[in-house]
């Protein structure tokens, strides 16, 4: 199969990760995946107010996903939408399992994800950035989380759909994955696929997450070498 941008079916777009881009934040990162650009900033842990929101035995990981108004062709209206609220929630679920939240009872760890430019795969880019930003903040973690999406076009399983592929695919399945625990922490799907194909697509995603994981670690080491 020939892809629009000449990639192999199991190849993701050029990935660039830069750690420590927001001096005010406790931890931060920028992830570029092709033309998609996400930044993440981590603030905390700090006391969670109002008090009734606190959990007595662990911290709350609060994620807020926002798209810049100019990030897409048609301007995005500022303020939360149903879509951004859902993505914020699944992002928090994707990241929480790897964070030692029990070390910070009654606190909140704020993770802000802003999409600067959108061109497919913004939630996965946001998770990749947020995971690295949490580590950059020095928050104790069991592992990093890597994230990517894949689908099926014709008879082929295709990684990291972009451009017209997003319409051509039979399904779009994003995942987030913790390689050390071999656990999937985010899984969503839109489309129409038999169960065997779903499994293949997830396996393709997992392989790619293992590679992204290496890039995340390299970026962190780059930031913290001396």
């Amino acid at each position, binding site marked *: 199969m020939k892809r629009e941008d000449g990639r192999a079916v199991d190849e993701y777009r050029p990935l660039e990760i830069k750690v420590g881009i*927001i001096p*005010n934040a406790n931890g931060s990162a920028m992830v570029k995946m092709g033309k998609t650009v996400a*930044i993440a*900033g981590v603030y905390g842990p700090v006391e969670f107010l109002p008090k009734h929101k606190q959990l007595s035995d662990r911290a709350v990981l609060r994620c807020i996903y926002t798209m810049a108004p*100019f*990030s897409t062709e048609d301007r995005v209206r500022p303020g939360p939408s149903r879509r951004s609220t859902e993505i914020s929630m699944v992002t928090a679920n994707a990241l929480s399992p790897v964070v030692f939240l029990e070390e910070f009872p009654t606190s909140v760890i704020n993770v802000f994800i802003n999409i600067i430019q959108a061109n497919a795969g913004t939630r996965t880019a946001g998770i990749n950035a947020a995971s690295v930003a949490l580590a950059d903040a020095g928050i104790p973690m069991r592992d990093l989380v890597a994230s990517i999406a894949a689908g099926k076009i014709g008879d082929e399983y295709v990684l990291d759909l972009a451009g017209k592929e997003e319409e051509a695919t039979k399904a779009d399945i994003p995942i987030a994955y913790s390689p050390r625990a071999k656990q999937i922490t985010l899984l969503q799907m839109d489309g129409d696929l038999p169960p065997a194909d779903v499994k293949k697509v997830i396996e393709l995603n997992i392989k790619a997450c293992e590679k992204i994981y290496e890039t995340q670690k390299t970026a962190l080491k780059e930031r913290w070498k001396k």
Partner: protein
Amino acid sequence: MNIQKEFILRCVEEGKRADGRGLEDFRKVEIEHNPIENAEGSARVKIGETDVIVGVKLGTGEPFPDKPDDGVLIVTAELSPIASPKFEPGPPREGAIELARVVDRGIRESGSIDTKKLCITPKEKVWCVFVDVQIINHGGNLIDAYSLAALTALMNTKMPEYDGEKIDYSKKTKPFPLKDKPIAVTVCKLGNSLVVDPSLEEEEHIEARLTVTTKENGNVAALQKGGGPLSLEEIEKAIALSVKKGKELRSLL
């Protein structure tokens, strides 16, 4: 009086800044052109640790009834919590609204956009110009940073093609009708001295600030005072200083 404030004010009394700058010096200004491909024009401006991206989007809409053949300008700001521990999530509050309105007035009142050229069909359809900002890091002096990035983004803006029904964002060709280059410079009263480009630390201790937006010909297009009182003498000095610094900033474009 806390130690930080004491130090900042003592420096100013001695004619310098806590970070070693002179009273009338900006921090390092860096401008990146068109970092956002999906915008019709964009710019990233860094002033010291302050880091903002402005994107200009163009859409079509109805004109205001009292200005049937003028395009519409909409300037917004959100103090995104990613940029500072002091910014909280939620709808824009005072600070964000003032920021957007001061930048808006600078662009609008200077007449820098030829809004008549943004009319498609009088009374029915005009171009709407959206100027939005993403603050990446708040290191002080957001008004000047946003204003400079907004102007740069407008200068970089190209009009997309429009066939009467649909906008074709893949074809951005025609120039945007920009007539002037308004620059905002905020002068702050720190102790008894006037300084420009306050750092985040200095901003906390200023007595008053005056934002002066000047046009290319040196005229003033917009003023906004924040904080406490200023004497006429101080205002005169602040305006003269803004004109001078505005020229310097404009030469970077």
